[in-house]
């Protein structure tokens, strides 16, 4: 366990008035953009590629590579900042924006310079109210200090930056859903190709980057790619924020390298400090709900981009852990998870629209103590139809719905079956009569 890890992204968290421009500047802020402006955009992209900065939003796609997909010849480029952090139970972007908004703004400037963006839109989920006011205030300060607008810091680089507020839709965190929403439409993800890098916002070349990804940029520029790749395991370089919530002693957002394991995050003294009342861990969703669930026996999993696959999970996701303890009824977990996807499915693709709704209905019945064995099979089969075979739908939401539900049913099948066995006879029919 790397006890020598020094927080970088969260270095200003807890510092008084860190959201103020002067404090941020006094603590070394806005030096990254100054250094970046001395480099050419190509050099900057190379540096980020060398750092192998993988997107922190969920998919882990290398940011430098994403930028290099932009067509060579282009007049207008848009940068969309994905601050639609809606994956339960993820809150690292909120922490970053609330505690250190200028770090994000500096990251936006660097990404904007690297991609020659003309306008940056920060797409912020509607639920973020306090973070919006904090970030907007910081943005006003940054504009006043000449960090945005025309000829930034005396260079030839000009970029505007606006905050665009969402209004309650998980799917707008998908990059093309976000773009549609920015264009004033319902957040129905687009079919690809064309990819946003070629024809995104207003059909112009567009880059969509996550808040945490952008927050890494000032540090990569200042300290160099080698510093970044010295942190963490192969393929998962750099500092990472981990959110821990659920019945743990110290829920919160923690920064570490991706060498850390689930167990350390739950039990480490610098982290969540164990379970409330020393209860046993029954399971953990280690990467936001959508990545799937681990049982209490799988806590050795390393929280990097590649390990989760070995445990049947979709990926690292948002690296937000929610832990549930031995007292939790697994049926309640299933109900909560299925409900989330049923509520948030956008309704465009058949499998997702109908599948999420059906699974929620089944989970409701199971949670009322009226499950059937075949329900478990239907749940698994439905998740396979939705997302286990990637590509069945336009966006990744159904994959994200499939993994937690399938892994829950498969990994906790014995418990579900116990409940079914213990049911009084005729319960299914009675509950159906009431429900219908």
């Amino acid at each position: 366990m790397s006890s020598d890890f020094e927080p970088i992204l969260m270095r200003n968290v807890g510092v008084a008035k860190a959201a103020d421009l002067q404090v941020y500047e006094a603590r070394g802020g806005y030096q990254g953009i100054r250094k970046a402006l001395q480099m050419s955009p190509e050099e900057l992209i190379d540096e980020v590629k060398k750092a192998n900065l993988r997107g922190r939003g969920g998919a882990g796609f290398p940011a430098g590579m994403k930028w290099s997909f932009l067509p060579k010849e282009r007049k207008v480029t848009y940068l969309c900042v994905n601050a639609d952090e809606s994956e339960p139970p993820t809150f690292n972007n909120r922490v970053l924006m609330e505690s250190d908004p200028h770090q994000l703004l500096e990251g936006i400037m660097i990404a904007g310079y690297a991609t020659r963006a003309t306008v940056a839109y920060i797409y912020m989920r509607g639920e973020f109210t306090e973070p919006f006011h904090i970030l907007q205030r910081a943005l006003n300060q940054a504009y006043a200090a000449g960090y945005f607008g025309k000829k930034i810091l005396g260079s030839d680089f000009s970029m505007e930056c606006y905050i665009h507020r969402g209004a309650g839709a998980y799917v707008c965190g998908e990059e093309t859903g976000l773009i549609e929403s920015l264009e004033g439409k319902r957040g129905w993800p687009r079919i690809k190709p064309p990819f946003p890098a070629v024809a995104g916002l207003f059909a112009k070349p567009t880059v969509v980057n996550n808040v945490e990804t952008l927050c890494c940029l000032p540090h990569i520029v200042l300290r160099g790619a080698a510093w970044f790749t010295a942190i963490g395991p192969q393929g998962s370089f750099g500092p990472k924020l981990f959110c821990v919530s659920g019945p743990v002693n110290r829920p919160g957002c923690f920064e570490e390298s991706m060498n850390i394991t689930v167990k350390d995050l739950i039990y480490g003294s610098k982290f969540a400090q164990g379970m409330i009342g020393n209860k046993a861990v029954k399971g953990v969703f280690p990467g936001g709900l959508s990545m799937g669930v681990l049982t209490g026996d799988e806590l050795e999993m390393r929280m990097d981009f590649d390990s989760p696959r070995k445990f049947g999970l979709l990926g690292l996701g948002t690296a937000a852990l929610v832990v549930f303890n031995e007292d939790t009824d697994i049926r309640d977990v299933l109900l909560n998870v299925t409900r989330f996807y049923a509520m948030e499915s956008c309704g465009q693709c058949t499998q997702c629209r109908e599948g999420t709704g059906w699974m929620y209905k089944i989970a409701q019945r199971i949670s009322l103590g009226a499950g059937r064995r075949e329900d478990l099979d239907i749940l698994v089969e439905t998740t396979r139809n939705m997302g286990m075979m990637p590509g069945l739908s336009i966006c990744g939401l159904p994959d994200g719905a499939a993994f937690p539900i399938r892994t829950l049913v498969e990994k906790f099948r014995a418990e579900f079956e116990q409940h079914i066995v213990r049911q009084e006879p005729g319960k299914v029919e009675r509950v159906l009569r009431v429900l219908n």
Partner: protein
Amino acid sequence: MVLQAALEAGMDIPHYCYHPSLSVVASCRLCLMEMKVPDPKSGELVWMPKLVPSCQTPVKEGMEVRFNSPAVQQNQQQCMEYFLLNHPLDCPVCDQAGECYLQDYSYRFGQPTSRMVEEKLKNPKKDVGPRTLLYQDRCVMCSRCVRFTDEIAGTHELTVVNRGNRAEIDVFPGLPLNNPLQGNVVDLCPVGSLLDKDFLFKQRVWLLRETKSICPGCSTGCAIRIDHNEGVIYRLKPRFSPKVNDYWMCDEGRFGWKYLQDGDRLTRPVVRRGGEVFYPRWEDIPEIINYRLRKLAEQQTPTAVVLSPMLACEEAWLIASYVRALLPQAVLVASWLPVQGAEQNFPVGSPAEKARFTIRPEKCPNRRGVELLINKLGGASSTLEDLIKQVKEKKIKAAWITGGYSQRDWVSKELAAAAKELELLVMQDLYANALTDNSHVLLPSCCWAEREGSFVNQAGLIQPFERAVDGPEGTRRDGQYLYEIAGYSGLYRAEKVRERMAEQLAEFRDIYVAPDPPEHQH
């Protein structure tokens, strides 16, 4: 796109959201296929583990795809179960039954039972427009109708509201689906969700017989299909015609045919002589006409033939060439032209050259055909206005006038007054009017759906149409009696007459018949 190519190759690939004339959304996920891609390491072509939508994948040289693999078939089967999860299965009372792609695809690609035991979502039917009903719970959310109002009509009335499995189609309250092309959304709907109020509960579709026709509503000349049973027309549907109307037709044409089923059509020939009225048998008509016209020829009476733009080319040719044979000096006149309103281009507001559909102000099917014929036959010709003058000045003393308009008031006062001056008026029309009342020989006409022939549309395409139903009892098809008057015997066949006509007038040789779309495309 691969889907279109597969359909054109005759394959039955299930699909809902894809339509060749609408944008691709790839949301129904029914047409997914397997595709080979180069292996990143070896470069060898291997089957990709994920399925891809064939509607969204362009065809490339050397590409390899398949639809018959277990993964593809399983996806189709699952999708069909999902589509029916909240569907009320009310086929017995659904108009779409029999031409429903939920039925067809469930049968061909689906599974016989649904495993959902919970109650289905209920969704009431909605009155979305003056002509259209929306049965939301039958909807598969393909969004074709929404895209139609956005992309073709340009009127945007229909939209998706809500999300997830509560998503539905709706209109803004107070702004109903009310564009002149709205009937097309019913055709586009692959299931029984959008239904035509006019056709609602009128007829089970499997009883209907289909006849290929051309819409006579305006000079666009849309390719259409007449759906009828036992001599009664129930509805018109557009046929695919890439050069003319694509997949669409307007409501004016779609619902504008009702006049032909009005009860007051002219049904029997009438002869008037010196205040006396006779009702001859149809069999005697050729002789009566021949007698009358030969007399005109003997007396060298100046005669005019007024050809209606409602006539088929073949019929106009039969009349003109017959009269000219007896009276070579006969003046050929193009009859009254129904013109109404301005050209309407769609999407609304688009310029004519970018229009994807146009409703034309000329409300008749064959002005160009009649004009072409008059030009090519040569000799004396005139306009209707001049004709009226000439009749008043006694320069024309006999006329054969054809009508056939749906507009009952087509006869102007001047024309009616002039007609009284004529020594002989042979009149062909649908309804009684000032001309028919004063005619010496009255020949009841049939409607376009009761006849066969060809129309020349505004772009000059010669488009044949077939007969769907018989006229009211007592009537005879115009072509048939004209054929007999012209001295032919046997059954009138427009095609035969067209051949003869084309021998004389080469312009009528090349007809345009729209190709049938692939069998499994919808």
